[in-house]
């Protein structure tokens, strides 16, 4: 019998709000004439949807805190409300809000300002909610598809731009392929357990033993699908093309929200469903981590397009995150959570500076486009410097904290080889991040960039900049949040 209890409603409410506001944005756009003051108010509605959803998350957190942090399950065990879900949903919501803040002026400049954009961002966030909160494979799958389909459209949102279309097409084709793999893996799990929940899977794994080919096949295909989503090698190849072609605001959102939600799912699948199968998946993840670090860091060196370079750097970040999972201890998992939190702010921050700048009437794209920024807009150059230092993991910026935890976890668990590799690649990554610094500070340019910051951009820049510094200098509250999300 299908029931809809109060608990179900409570768990679902943030997603419900997101979905309703998304539809509202579309309807209002349809109902009102097109020329009402550039329709900046649509942004307001969309953001208020995020704010309401965030408020609900806060309520959920309060409820959990009052009830001793016992997770709530809803919809017959399809969704679970725990601190883990709240933490990662929070990251996605914040990144969506930041992206909304910076999108308005950007889309105006590109002459592609449409209400659908905001609705799609909300729908993607809606999908991410089910990825993060779901423990049932069907629910998870639907969430994944909702998010992915929203992103396919968003990536190709600049209809007049060939690269944007190409990026969307590639992302769609490969994304479809990877989803196929994931659902194949899920179907095998279903076959093994006769149930679609991850908890049922967990109870079956020990019985199948470490040499079960079917289970292994399921693990490999599921991981392939998930590694694709987080942009880890060798399933990363869509990322450079897609990041480069997509509208910069969408790139930022894709790099943060999609990666965060998918990583949360990866953690959930591995920790809940497959924790008994660690010997099977650990070598695979180790391989993917090493490959991601190597390909991401080495390929980033020669890129001249900033977005493409950041795409490779995000592949490398996926490698570090996987190392945290491979380490397999609490320190590593806390490291992953704090890494994703800091990653959201510094990545959006870096893309944000690109969004804020325009040159020759077009968005800034190549490293040379940043030339002489330090002399024209010193505060923007300094902020970009902070974001880049953070991405490279230099203390005392936010990016250092996650890396510190992950390296510490590797040392604690005796995986020295991986720690050495990771540390060496930190040194390498500084090199390509500093190509931007070099351009900003040492290269003179006759063509000036024009700064077109809207108030939204200013606000978002202030938030990301302050967060990047604050999390680095005073990480303790954030570390506590990350630890609490994992029930530690």
């Amino acid at each position, binding site marked *: 019998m299908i029931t809809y209890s109060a608990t179900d409603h409570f768990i679902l409410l943030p997603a419900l709000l997101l979905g309703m506001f998304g539809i509202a944005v579309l309807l209002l756009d349809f109902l009102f004439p097109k020329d009402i003051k550039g329709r900046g108010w649509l942004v307001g509605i969309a953001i208020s949807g995020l704010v309401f959803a965030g408020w609900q998350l806060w309520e959920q957190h309060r409820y959990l805190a009052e009830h001793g942090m016992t997770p709530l399950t809803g919809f017959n065990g399809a969704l679970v409300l725990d601190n883990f879900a709240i933490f990662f949903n929070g990251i996605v919501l914040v990144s969506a809000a930041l992206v909304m803040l910076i999108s308005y002026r950007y889309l105006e400049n590109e002459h592609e300002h449409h209400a659908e954009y905001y609705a799609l961002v909300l729908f993607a966030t809606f999908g991410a909610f089910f990825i993060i909160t779901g423990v049932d494979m069907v629910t998870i799958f639907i969430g994944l598809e909702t998010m992915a389909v929203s992103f396919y459209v968003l990536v190709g949102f600049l209809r007049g731009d060939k690269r944007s279309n190409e990026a969307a097409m590639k992302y769609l084709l490969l994304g479809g392929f990877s989803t196929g793999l994931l659902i194949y893996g899920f179907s095998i799990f279903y076959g093994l357990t006769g149930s679609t929940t991850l908890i049922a899977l967990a109870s079956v794994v020990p019985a199948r033993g470490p040499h079960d080919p079917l289970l292994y096949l399921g693990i490999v295909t599921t991981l392939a699908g998930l590694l694709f989503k987080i942009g880890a090698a060798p399933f990363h190849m869509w990322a450079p093309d897609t990041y480069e072609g997509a509208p910069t605001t969408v790139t930022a959102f894709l790099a943060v929200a999609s990666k965060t939600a998918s990583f949360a799912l990866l953690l959930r699948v591995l920790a809940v469903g497959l924790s008994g199968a660690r010997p099977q998946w650990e070598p695979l993840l180790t391989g993917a981590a090493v490959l991601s670090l*190597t390909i991401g860091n080495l390929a980033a060196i020669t890129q001249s397009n900033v977005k493409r370079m950041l795409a490779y750097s995000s592949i490398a970040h996926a490698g570090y995150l996987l190392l945290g999972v491979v380490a397999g201890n609490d320190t590593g998992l806390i490291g992953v959570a704090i890494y994703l939190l800091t990653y959201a702010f510094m990545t959006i921050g870096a893309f944000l500076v690109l969004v804020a700048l325009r040159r020759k009437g077009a968005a800034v794209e190549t490293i040379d486009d940043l030339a002489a920024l330090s002399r024209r807009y010193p505060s923007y150059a300094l902020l970009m410097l902070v974001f880049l230092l953070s991405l490279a993991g230099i203390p005392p910026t936010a990016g250092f904290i996650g890396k510190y935890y992950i390296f*510490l976890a590797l040392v604690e668990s005796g995986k020295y080889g991986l720690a050495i590799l990771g540390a060496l690649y930190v040194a390498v990554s500084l090199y390509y991040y500093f190509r931007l610094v070099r351009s900003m500070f*040492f290269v003179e340019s006759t063509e000036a960039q024009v700064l077109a910051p809207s108030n939204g951009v200013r606000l978002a820049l202030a938030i990301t900049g302050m967060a990047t510094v604050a999390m680095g200098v005073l990480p303790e509250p954030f570390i506590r949040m990350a630890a609490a999300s994992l029930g530690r």
Partner: protein
Amino acid sequence: MVNLIWLIPLIPLGGAAVLLLLGRMLPKSLIKVVAPGTIFAAFLLSLGAVMESGGKPHEVVLYEWLPKVDWGFLLDPLSSVMILIITGIGFLIHVYATGYMDHEGGYYRFFGYLNLFVFFMLILVLANNYVLLFAGWEGVGLASYLLIGFYFNKKSAGDAAKKAFLFNRVGDAGFILGMFCVAALTHGSLAFRDLHGLTAGPLLTAAAALLFLGATGKSAQLPLFVWLPDAMEGPTPVSALIHAATMVTAGVYMVARSSAIYSLAPEVSAAISCIGATTAIMAATIAMVQTDIKRVLAYSTVSQLGFMFMAAGVGAYWVAVFHLMTHAFFKALLFLGAGSVIHGLHGEQDMLKMGGLRSEMPITFWTMAIAALAIAGVPGMAGFFSKDEILFYAYLNFKSVFAVGLITAALTAFYMWRLMFLTFFGEKRTLVHAHESPLVMTAPLIVLALGCGGCSYYAAQLERWLEPVLHSNHSPDIGLKHVLMAASVFAAFTGILLARYFHASTGPLGPLTKLAQHKWYLDDIYDFVFVRGLGMRGGEYLGSFDRRILDGGINGAGLVTRFVSRASIWADTWIVDGLVRIAGFSAMFASLPARIVQTGFVQSYALVIVAAIAAALGLFWVK
């Protein structure tokens, strides 16, 4: 005041923030006050704190930064010496720079970066753990990078900044790894107070070696010293502050700070001593044949840092710090003097075009002469005692290091007085009318000169002062000490005398001259292997990463043909330039799989996914 030590770095940070963010709107006269003013305030606060602490270690923990790692500052005798050097000499150099940079554009940026540097340097030496030290370590690297490339219109400046950056990266990788080894030793604490009570073992040896690798990058030792001479592209006050007095000594400081680790790793310490000695003599020979006045001083710095590591390697950590201190005085003075000469000659740096400047620039001449006597090791001057102590301790431990040190001392006296004779004596070889620098520039010279003469008499006090924190193996063999002293004085005067007669010689080293002129081919080796080998070839290969070489996506037949033909070409030229090939080869090899697949074609991307899954499944049967 001792509880306010956390404020010491913050004052220059405030200055940097004001200058960098609002500097464009501020009048020059205000910048001239703000920039040195913040450093002076930091100096006063440091002085007060040091006097109040009276040499007792004092920790101020602001809060727990990372688990078991505090955001905490440590004022002990070692860091006291360092902060006084940094803020004291830093203040003088700031004052000097207000005059020196008067006609340069970007005044506010220059002082903003310079204040930022002082902030990070103070964090580095005041940190009470390795992680915070590392934050400062990277920060000074950043500030140094920005300042070396300050004259951004000069291409060589940008290249020099890049070079410094790259060589420091190698060292930093070592530092990070060493840091995590220490974390494993101290169970995650990484605080300096927890270093005592460690026991020797392979992990500790690894930590010592890796941290030292970090020091070779920052403090310009073999094999990573080649960046420092190029860093002279930066403005001269920067060379004086960062690349002579403070930042480059961070490695020495770090080793001294880690003396508890190094005293348990005798093999690593011995290696440090040998590397220091080798670097010292190598750099000294190169300094003998340079004609650019700043480059002589740069190689001299490398050489003197080698002396410091010689001392640290034989366990005489306080001597290393003592030499660090005297060196900060005389080398800062020499650089500022050289800057005054360059300023007076409107940018001329070639010593062969100077000469006879003694009468035109008397203050510069006399102050520099004091510093040159000090570095040569003439009795009564700062460098004499510190160098003497180094040689003494080297003699007690490794006779060969001592011998190299003694020869280097003579070479030092030679190249430094060669510089003096070429610059200030003889015929004037330029038509430019030289002028003495303004008071803001000469006053710091005079103060530093007084310091050069004065600070030498405090050797015994410094040893006692540093005793509680640094492991020292004291050996009061006065008789032996006097013999060695005589030897080093003899070496110093021989060097000066030889410089008097052979300063114009183009081949002072005889058969070795060519080697020294080519900087022992170190740059060429790096260039050959890394720039041309890995850099260009590797860059080429990596660059073609996604340049869509293979148009068919997965044209197997074409691939094989291409492969075979390429292999045969390789075989032909294999022996001709093997080294480059190997380097390029490895980059090529590393990027090969990626190059084949990153074609921009969806089919080949999908194929890779399938292949990866097949490989993962294959793993199942392998196991």
